């Protein structure tokens, strides 16, 4: 869809605000509607839109799959690690009050929501890559043999 001028220009304008909005939802989640899950999905839609307009390969360069693998596991570790930290501070698992003298619940929520956001965004983008990249990753030799077929593939996706 690179050749569609309208789509290309509009998405160039839209992607940055989407990313910004994701961070807004992320960091206001603990006292207003929203939170890590929603923010993660919104962040992922920005990347998915980029992939749809400029091609999956471009998206893969911008957000490499290795980063997603690290992000997906890091988010869970942040969430669980918060729980372990509260245990080490002498409380029960996820007892946020131990994190700070005042507003421990507040800080605790921010941290775990950040973990949720990172994992959700990574997994959503990873799912998009898997579906969009279907047929090329599975048989890489075939791609080399039939360069023509690969082009058809790309047309189908974009």
């Amino acid at each position, binding site marked *: 869809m690179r050749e569609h001028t309208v789509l290309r220009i509009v998405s160039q304008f839209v992607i940055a605000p989407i990313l910004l909005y994701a961070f807004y939802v992320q960091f206001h989640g603990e006292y207003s509607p929203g939170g890590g899950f929603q923010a993660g999905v919104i962040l992922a839609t920005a990347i998915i839109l980029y992939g749809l307009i400029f091609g999956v390969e471009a998206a893969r360069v911008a957000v490499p799959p290795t980063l997603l693998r690290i992000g997906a*596991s890091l988010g*869970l*570790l942040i969430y669980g*690690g918060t729980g372990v930290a509260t245990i080490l501070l002498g409380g*029960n698992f*996820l007892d946020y009050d131990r994190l700070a003298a005042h507003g421990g619940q507040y800080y605790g929520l921010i941290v775990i929501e950040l973990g949720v956001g990172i994992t959700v965004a990574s997994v959503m983008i990873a799912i998009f890559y898997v579906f969009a990249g279907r047929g090329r990753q599975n048989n890489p030799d075939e791609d080399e043999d039939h360069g023509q077929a690969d082009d058809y593939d790309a047309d189908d996706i974009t």
Partner: protein
Amino acid sequence: MITAFFNQMPVLVVVVPLLAAPLCVLAHRAFAAWLLYVLASWSAFGMAFLLFVQAKIAGQVSYAVGDWAPPFGIELVIDTYSALVLLLVTGVAALTGIYARKSIASEITIEREYLVFALMLLCLAGLIGITVTGDAFNLFVFLEISSLSSYALIAMGPKRRALLSSFQYLIMGTVGGTFLLIGIGLIFMMTGTLNMADLAERLPGVYDTRTVQAGLAFVVVGLSLKAALMPAHIWLPNAYTYAPSTVSAFIAATATKVAVYALFRFVFTIFGVGYAFGSLPLGTLLLTLAAISMIAGSLASIFQTDVKRLLAWSSVAQMGYIVAGFALASTAGVSAGLVHLLNHGIIKGALFMAVGAMIWRVRASSINDLAGLGRAMPLTSAAFVVGGLSLIGVPATAGFISKWALLSALFEAGRYGVMAVLLVASLLSIIYVGRVIEALYFRPLPDDVSHHQHGEAPLGMQVATWALIAINIAIGVHATPELEATGRAAALLVGGGT
């Protein structure tokens, strides 16, 4: 420090495997992931043992997650019933760790190995979570964690059919999970609470409403799907057949057992014995389904040509035995059901491990391919024979203990028809175990096949298989500790719920 550790153990037993899973993914190396799996599963096993002892001394271990007081926050509760199932799950998982290295390497490409271990850790965390939680909704969440990871694990099987069977399991499993969620939603609607102990207190006031009756029905159907009780067993044979051998052994020994645990946790602890088995005819219903499971599962097993599928169908039959015990709703019956739940987990785990070792050698799983392996792999074949005898219920094996307990409980309850069915099903099991043994010992090794060049399975696979066989024999010879523990759990379930 030590007391702090003991206080945190109920949650740590879940958190350790849960956090080891993302570490596996970060490590990205097959060996590191395997090492993490072994460390996490063995430490979970150690904690499970300590929790079992704690539950024995204190009667019940309780833990408030996030320090929110029980009826409002999530509570973890470990009594003897959950501690026994916890021991089975973590024990099998720990031994699977020793077994897994070579078996996984032969069936899955090295780039994906770390994913298998990460998923197995997630599945383990989910199964442990189900057993330790004291919150109905939390149980559903953990059930989904274990189910989702097991779908992915089964899909990693070496044959392409694995994808289809995983999808089949996914559909059935999701229906089961949704039914459970609807059931929990209905009882939440009537009581306004999700804590199991609190539910048990509040439900008697609203027993006579359609909502609660429907809630029980949804919970029973949903968890029966997960436990593969007869009309809902259709996902099981394919899933066990096409999963990687390690995964088959792990899931066959734990997943359906934990589903049965959850089913009777709901029925006995939350809804109460008097309600489910007194005012509603759940006992008769479950006994009938169990009897059909025993016969149909054993019959189907006889006609299988694939040895993993044969064991899978036998699992369907064995689930019938387990459910029959619980469905009697007497102390003896529940105790017998629980004994068979544990014993069958140990037996089936060992059998799937032995078969996995043979598949590792022959690279095929049809019974004909196993011809003559009794000479090429004497130790593994011997392990299969002992496991098979235990499955039939020969004295001095764990299978005998549980069948004897079941028969005497059925006799006590006057269910002579089910007794007859159980004996017939045991006779049928001689046939299907016999078919495999016949192929192993009474057929010649095919001359033309080069990979038969003798040689046993790797040491790790042997050790894990024989460890389970040894436990099996130990229970068969001296069952008093196990029977005493299950008796305590049964008294707790049957006595506490009314």
